[in-house]
């Protein structure tokens, strides 16, 4: 009913040591489907085995997504040159570049108003470490934020920005998105926050 390869696949999915693969897979299958002698065709078994292998790859049964919208993970290097408590400003420097985005709650995806988002980058007006390269803004009633800042230019090999959510209420997230091209004058970033 199930050839060796299919047995191994199923065993891996059921976390059974491989030496028992064939035997155990058959046993588990018949137990699961309440069958003493499995009337399952070879084709059904193969399909099930294939599905068991492919499901995790598609992310369809990822635990965090089981409850809905998954939280945004912090990116590597996202917190580099972070300065806590950057002031809320109407614009960083002379402007010309728009950092935009949304802030939503993990799970139900509800927009989060009045959330503070902080940003900094290497721009035409300064390095990442310079205090005047940093600023913050608040999301509106629809969970949308947009802040004008100087043009982001490539530094350390990539044209990139930094954003942070670092307030109480939700878990801290640091992002380091790349510009799609060097000519871009805007960067859109989505935050999905997990409650603390």
């Amino acid at each position: 009913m199930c050839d060796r390869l299919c047995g191994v696949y199923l065993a891996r999915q059921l976390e059974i040591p491989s030496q028992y693969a064939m035997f155990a897979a058959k046993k588990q299958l018949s137990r699961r489907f309440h069958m003493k002698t499995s009337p399952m065709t070879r084709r059904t078994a193969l399909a099930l085995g294939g599905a068991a292998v492919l499901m995790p790859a598609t992310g369809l049964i990822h635990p965090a997504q089981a409850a809905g919208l998954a939280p945004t993970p912090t990116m590597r290097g996202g917190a580099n040159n972070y300065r806590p408590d950057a002031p809320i400003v109407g614009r960083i420097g002379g402007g010309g570049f728009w950092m935009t985005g949304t802030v939503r709650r993990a799970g139900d995806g509800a927009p989060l108003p009045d959330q503070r988002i902080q940003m900094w980058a290497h721009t035409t007006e300064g390095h990442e470490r310079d205090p005047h390269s940093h600023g913050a803004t608040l999301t509106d009633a629809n969970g949308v934020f947009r802040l004008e800042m100087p043009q982001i230019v490539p530094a350390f090999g990539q044209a990139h920005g930094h954003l942070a959510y670092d307030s109480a209420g939700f878990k801290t997230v640091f992002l380091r998105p790349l510009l799609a091209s060097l000519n871009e004058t805007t960067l859109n970033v989505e935050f999905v926050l997990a409650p603390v």
Partner: protein
Amino acid sequence: MRLSKRLRHILIWGGLVSAILAPIAAAANSPLLQWREPIYIIAGFAGIIAMAMLLLQPLLAISAIPGLSPHMSRRVHRYGGMALVLAVVVHVVGLWMTSPPDVIDVLLFRSPTPFAIWGALAIWAVFGAALLAFWRVRLPLRVWRWGHTVLVSLAVVGTVVHAVQIIGTMETLTKSALSVLVVAALLLAIARRRVWTMGIQPRRR
């Protein structure tokens, strides 16, 4: 015959000088420089100069540069190696001063940038090759030759992949040309030296 030999010398020298000066001149015209502090600019150019040294070093090692005697070539190769190590140190320290956390991420192999790991590989390969050269007289011949060959090969591969992936001050065409020449010079030196002919183990008597 005499004239063609002279012409060849001129062409080789001209090619080498332009292969090194063109990327430096192109980078000096990069618009990115206007938004960078001097220490960041120096760090970047130290990297370009280090890469250019990788073109000269293999040619000096096999004294393939016309007009230089084998003895002179070897001496220049030795000083070139020291200059290369110095350039790498200036490159890393300058970047560290510009943005410490980014350089710490690179050295700890956790940088988000794909080219960082190749740069880190090249750093350690250059330092390793230089250390072998420093202890050369005390090392068994095979350890020295195989070690230096393998380490400089890693340094070249690391540097070229590192440079090609970076969006920085280097201009694409001159960067590509220099990359191709650096690899070609390494392959030429390896083909001339034929380190594999002496084997890995000493021959039994």
